[in-house]
């Protein structure tokens, strides 16, 4: 089993897209992240990192403050995304620099290694410079468990 046998379709975002597009895409595709084409590189922004940008930093510093947050004001958090772009999500990445893509020939273990090293729940599969699609961690685990 190789990477090209596992790929599923994924839409690609541009850094200039609004961050709300990433939010909507994750919601609609049920993928655990989004793929962004930035400087000719395909990068993955995990859904958790999109949420990280939604939350004020002081809530990340002190999770107890998340508990005191009332539901009506929680809606206002998403409004923060309207002023941000996908490039802001890339800039807020916790583990930048690691590759988020594999070749179509990559084995399951190779895919797992890229996911684990880059802390992403999704990797992009590229063959001859063409994007074939993406593989999620849950897909990978299902095949590893067989």
């Amino acid at each position, binding site marked *: 089993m190789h990477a090209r046998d596992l790929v599923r379709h994924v839409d690609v975002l541009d850094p200039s897209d609004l961050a709300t597009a990433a939010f909507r895409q994750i919601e609609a595709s049920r993928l655990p992240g989004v793929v962004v084409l930035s400087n000719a590189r395909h990068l993955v922004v995990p859904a958790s990192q999109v949420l990280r940008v939604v939350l*004020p*930093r*002081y*809530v990340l*510093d*002190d999770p*107890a*403050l998340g*508990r*005191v*947050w*009332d539901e*009506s*004001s929680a809606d206002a958090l998403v409004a923060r995304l309207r002023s941000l772009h996908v490039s802001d999500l890339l800039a807020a990445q916790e583990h930048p620099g690691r590759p988020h893509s594999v070749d179509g020939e990559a084995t399951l273990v190779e895919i797992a290694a890229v996911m684990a090293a880059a802390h992403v729940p999704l990797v992009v599969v590229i063959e001859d410079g063409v994007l074939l699609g993406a593989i999620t961690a849950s897909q990978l685990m299902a095949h590893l468990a067989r």
Partner: protein
Amino acid sequence: MTGLAWVSVAIFVGTYVLIATERIHRVAAALGGAALVLGLGILSSDQAFYSHETGIDWDVIFLLLGMMLVVAVLKRTGVFEYLAIRAAKLAGGRPFGVLVLLVLVTAAASALLDNVTTILLVAPVTLLVCDRLGLPPVPFLVALTLASNIGGTATLVGDPPNIIIASHAGFTFNDMLVNLGPIVVVVLVAFVAMSRLLFRRSLHGDPTRADALLALDEREAITDASTLARSLVVLGLILAGFLLQRQTGVAPAIVALIGAGIMILLSPLTARELLADVEWETLLFFMGLFILVGALVQVGALDALATGIAELTGGDVVATLLVVLIGSAVISAFVDNIPYVTAMSPVVASLIAANPALGKDGALWWALALGADLGGNATLVGASANVVAAGVASRNGLLLTFKGWLRYGLPTAAVTVALCIPYLLLRYT
């Protein structure tokens, strides 16, 4: 002074320059300096590890360790978030009322916890409150940090320099509270009054947003009510242990360690999780400093400095008090007050030994504590809590500059240190 004395002074000055300029990590600088004085044989292992005069002050190290463990349990209960939100809601969302109540909560918390921990606990909740009320958060962060440095001055455990002074001079928790507490209350009242003027441009929020603050449910901040209840009982016992030191003869370090042990046993968290919260770097930093200063004591360099100060003031009590108070404030505005007080404590002890009138009711020690603790408010680099507040601001996309700090910190330090002058002169001379 002998050649060895000059070598010790050179190592000491070099290390302090490295610490002040942050060219290398402060722990590396302190331990490197300590390694040099030990390697050169200026101090023996007995003198470095077992001597009360020249060695590591284990009372200070273990008191800090015990209190760090106590805080590690307490901070996870959400009690500080609860108190801060409750205080802000009590003020009805009125900006000045919110500022005053947060200042008072911070100062009170800081009397029991070290200032850096206090700021790390109150800063996130302050940002939340300001966010809800549409207030600029930076002035509030500065106000609470200033309040933390003021509140910490009141007690033995409130600020690390006080722990060093108490250990060196043999003061109990009550000695510190009775002598520093009254002036800290005066200083805090003055600071609250000043705040109206200092922060006047930042006290204009949107009155319609008060409802957003009142919608916060502070009870939800309490993560574990039963651990909180048990922790508060243990904290009460620790406080009782501090207050009854004279009667029980049990040193604060022992009280804190016993309290920490009980806290760990009662906490649902593992010892490994709690030990991860101990600031081992700070403890190692202290150990390095104690060895460095011990070397100066051993070679007689600090006695020479004490003699110089005595000559400068002519042995006059008032002049010496003023030199130590104001000199400490000015130096602490630019140099971390922990290494400063570590170095100055033997000097103050020498001055008192030479002229017992200076030690009447501990006068010169209080001048050192007040100058070093309150002087740190003047600049952004004057106290560790200030630097931590700037870091919190930066992480939240806010800018807290040296100049921005100076606008609030310098007047606060000047007024608060000035208030200490009549207090010291009227009470101790």
